[in-house]
């Protein structure tokens, strides 16, 4: 009884069932693999005083024992997934709000994770500028569409 009380003390009043279902969605199989070949998503950034957008690469090399374990590849796939989730979050926000403010997006978990991805990727490549702008680009074989362009953000240290 005491354990149950401890578990539920200060239960957040902001519990959202939809997020709960999302967190445990792996328990409810969905076998729609690669059904719709819609847009792929790319992450690009630029620095101040530059007009050139540079693409963040998630490319990987195949390891000899990669069939057994391939941590870098699995992580890269998970990072690309974050881009797709962010694009989906934007679409969902657009569906429920007529006007979206920067704060609405910056509060998203996927935005925070994207920001971290940028911090990591730019740090890995020895990039020194800490103030950047980034965008998510939806691509297919015919066109590229800017889904989202951020404000100038300070990446901060890792």
């Amino acid at each position, binding site marked *: 009884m005491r354990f149950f009380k401890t578990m539920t003390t200060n239960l957040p009043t902001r519990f*959202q069932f939809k997020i709960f279902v999302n*967190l*445990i*969605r792996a328990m409810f199989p969905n076998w729609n693999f690669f059904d719709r070949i819609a847009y792929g998503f790319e992450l690009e950034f630029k620095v101040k005083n530059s007009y050139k957008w540079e693409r963040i690469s998630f490319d990987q090399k195949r390891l000899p024992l990669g069939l057994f*374990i391939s941590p870098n590849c699995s992580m890269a796939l998970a990072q690309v997934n974050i881009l797709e989730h962010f694009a989906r979050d934007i679409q969902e926000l657009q569906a429920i709000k007529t006007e979206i403010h920067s704060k609405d997006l910056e509060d998203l978990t996927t935005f*925070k994770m994207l920001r*971290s991805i940028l911090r990591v990727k730019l740090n890995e490549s020895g990039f020194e500028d800490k103030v950047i702008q980034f965008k998510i680009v939806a691509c297919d074989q015919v066109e590229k569409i800017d889904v989202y362009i951020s404000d100038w953000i300070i990446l901060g240290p890792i």
Partner: protein
Amino acid sequence: MSLSLAISITGRLLAFAMFLQGLELFLLTRKKYFFEIWSFTNLKGDLEKGLPLSNSLIAFLFSGVMFKTIIVLQMIAAVIGLFYLDAFSFGILFFTHLMICIRFRGTFNGGSDMMTFVVLTGVLIAFNSSHVETQKLGLSYIAIHIIYSYFKAGLSKIIHADWRSGLALPVLLERSLFLDIRLITKKFHTKKHLYFIFCWCVLIFELIALGLPMFSQFTLYYFLAAALFHFVIYYSLGLNRFFWIWMSAWPAIFYSVSLLQTK
């Protein structure tokens, strides 16, 4: 294949697959930047809104230290499960897999995480009962899901013109994380008939899965095709986890399909 042998092989292959999953994550958590992206700070909002637990308990259960502990626990339970097929070890694996999926906001690797739950559930049903019929139910649960996963994947694709025309495959391969795959795809860009054939090979392979219960004599051939299919998926898209977890389910299919043959 006997019931006990099917349960044994399924359980051990599952344990092996989950050991590999745990090892992969263990190596990732040792990378400097892993917890930068999947930090508790970043995930806190979703976890606190999505779990009916107190904030302090969430902070404890999903901290970096606890995450590493859970991964190590998974690896240990998987090694035990490889040698001793007991319900307790696989119950631990169910718990660790759930905690890891939640930590990754639902899934780390999509379909492979879902199939891991399916095989775990079937194995736990089989292990938790001494009744033969219940054990058969556990394996049948896995077999039904696997066969349905192939068929549903094919059905979801064939309704889209991109797959029927052969356009889908090059688009998919051009998004591969491997440069060699992207270069090969571009090189054969003009060979549209090749992609048409490959697309239809995928569609037919997935759709005919539904016929396995009725034509069980072809199960071995379908299994070999499936092994090749999953290997190609790994080689072209890097999805190594899919290979092992789908392979772990195949003894259940062999057994369940043979049940229909004997009736």
